[in-house]
């Protein structure tokens, strides 16, 4: 059925040819490429000494103008050859100038749809739609750029159809019905800034900067230390930029399918984490934050590790950048119902393990209850990894020669690639073996939906 007919942007085309994305796409995408080309040309000009006999300023001008032209032309051509089609069973994105490619996205395979607004696009009121499909390496498709309202409407439509409800394409005049979303957490900007300032790598970088400054003044060799100062300065700027700019205005809300994260100062991203794609949650508490009761949550979502977009709007695995313990526990409960890492029965590392981690051995333990497997480690940055039993992939036990001497072994609970790393290192070997088989059993029971408590034989026969 042909979509809505009175759009000012494009007349209703027959479905075979498909709809165009917004015409400014060419300008915006071209702008991004133009910037890259200009930077490349300018830096090569500056490092060399110009082309032939042309004076430097002229080569710079040529480089900038040329870069802009090339970038914009590429952007325009890409836009011209990109079309998308929405029909009864799938979304198709056709693109390519020389080699035509048609990306097919059947509705049932859509896992989540994110909206990203890189800075340039945001200035033009446009947004990019990122569609995540089930399985495989090429599971991420993106459609650039649509007006923001249209992008949101399209997201609604795709998610509805992915869940089996037929939806109609809304043209820009009608309002999409409000989803029932419950706001869970808003991280205030001051928290984000203070959290970044108190985070370990920032503090370390500042310390290093102070040391280098003092050394350069002491030895009166400022020039020699200048390189170090620049490197450290840019590292600090990068940390601040990445954390603060990416996590500004962090809002976490929940609907029936999953959690929705909205964040970003200059470029905004709206990302959905479907509940059933969550493979594990990692709770991180750097030393200084622990004193203040703050935690950071990271989530391991199937498929996110293979994403490699540009840094500012890439899909981040940060679930909650900074929150107090109560909020963090609440969010954890949403994703891994029933898991309470603090009250779990623990299997600790025996004192024989001090060889391998002289300070950290005291703080390591594993445990599990009916719902999840929990592993804790770390004293400078305390990490708690929570893996729901039904998401356990495989379980392994390892023992090297030194470990054999001390009668300890390491237990690994495997999950897909991501921030969660649930392993119990240097546990007593009998404990490791017992936990391996018990975890296997719990994972089996969870996969089949049984409760593990009913399977234990009643005490006393």
């Amino acid at each position, binding site marked *: 059925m042909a979509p809505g007919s009175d759009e000012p942007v494009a007349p209703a085309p027959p479905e075979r040819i498909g709809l165009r994305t917004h015409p400014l796409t060419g300008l915006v995408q071209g702008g991004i490429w133009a910037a890259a080309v200009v930077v490349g040309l300018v830096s090569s000009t500056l490092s060399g000494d110009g082309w032939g006999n042309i004076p430097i300023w002229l080569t710079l001008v040529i480089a900038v103008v040329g870069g802009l032209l090339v970038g914009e032309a590429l952007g325009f051509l890409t836009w011209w050859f990109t079309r998308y089609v929405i029909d009864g069973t799938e979304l198709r994105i056709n693109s390519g100038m020389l080699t035509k490619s048609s990306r097919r996205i059947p509705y049932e395979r859509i896992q989540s749809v994110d909206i990203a607004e890189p800075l340039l696009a945001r200035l033009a009121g446009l947004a990019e739609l990122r569609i995540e499909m089930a399985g495989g390496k090429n599971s991420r498709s993106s459609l650039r750029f649509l007006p923001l309202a249209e992008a949101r409407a399209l997201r609604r439509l795709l998610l509805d159809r992915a869940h089996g409800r037929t939806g109609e394409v809304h043209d820009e005049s009608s309002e999409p019905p409000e989803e029932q979303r419950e706001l869970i957490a808003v991280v205030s900007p001051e928290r984000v800034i203070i959290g970044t300032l108190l985070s370990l790598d920032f503090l370390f970088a500042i310390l290093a900067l102070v040391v280098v400054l003092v050394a350069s003044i002491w030895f009166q060799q400022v020039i020699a230390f200048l390189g170090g100062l620049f490197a450290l300065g840019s590292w600090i700027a990068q940390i601040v930029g990445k954390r603060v700019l990416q996590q500004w205005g962090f809002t976490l809300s929940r609907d029936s399918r999953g959690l929705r994260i909205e964040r970003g100062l200059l470029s905004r991203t709206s990302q959905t984490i479907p509940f059933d794609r969550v493979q594990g949650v990692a709770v991180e508490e750097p030393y200084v934050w622990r004193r203040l009761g703050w935690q950071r949550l990271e989530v391991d979502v199937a498929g996110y590790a293979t994403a490699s977009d540009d840094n500012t709007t890439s899909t981040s695995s940060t679930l909650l950048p900074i929150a107090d313990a109560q909020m963090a526990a609440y969010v954890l409960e949403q994703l891994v119902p029933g898991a309470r890492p603090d009250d779990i029965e623990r299997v600790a590392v025996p004192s024989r393990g001090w060889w391998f981690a002289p300070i950290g051995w005291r703080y390591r333990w594993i445990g599990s209850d009916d719902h999840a497997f929990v592993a804790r480690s770390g004293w400078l940055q305390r990490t708690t990894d929570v893996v729901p039993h039904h998401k356990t992939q*495989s379980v392994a036990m*390892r*023992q090297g020669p030194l470990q054999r001497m001390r009668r300890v*072994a390491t237990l690994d609970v*495997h999950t*897909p*690639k991501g921030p969660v790393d649930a392993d119990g290192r240097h546990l007593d*070997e*009998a404990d490791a073996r017992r936990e391996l088989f018990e975890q296997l059993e719990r994972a*089996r029971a969870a996969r089949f939906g049984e409760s593990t408590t009913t399977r234990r034989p009643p005490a006393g026969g």
Partner: protein
Amino acid sequence: MDDLFAPPNGNWQPVSPRLATLRRLLLIVPIAVLALVAVVVLALLVAWWIPVVVAVLAVGLGLWIWVWAGRNQRAWGYAENADDLLVTSGVMFKRLVAIPYGRMQFVDVTAGPVARALGIATVTLHTASTETAADIPGLPADEATRLRNRLTELGETHGAGL
């Protein structure tokens, strides 16, 4: 603890001794050739005792590889249980990995030219996690095929998605 890496019931299925033969062939032959060339060249260029030292070292390395190949092959084992597959390996760095059938995504059988000539193959299991790293080398070719078919079938019947 002696039976730390013993299977919970029954015994480990061993892999074929031809795995040791494969490893010995692939490692000792190139080393022998290199050592021979080195000895000849050195004998022509430098004092007589240097090539002797090289030859002794090469023989020592060859013997060590011979022994290692045998021990390593004997350390591989697998066990098919009702719901999962256990694989153990390693002499110095021992490892035991348990993979539920429902978590297997796909199963590969691979064999290089020398392995094919010896009639053995490697079965590799993949799950959604890259850390699983479960492979069983040195299986006789028909056992490898049988295992692969059985695992694929079990993976389908127990399949738990992601």
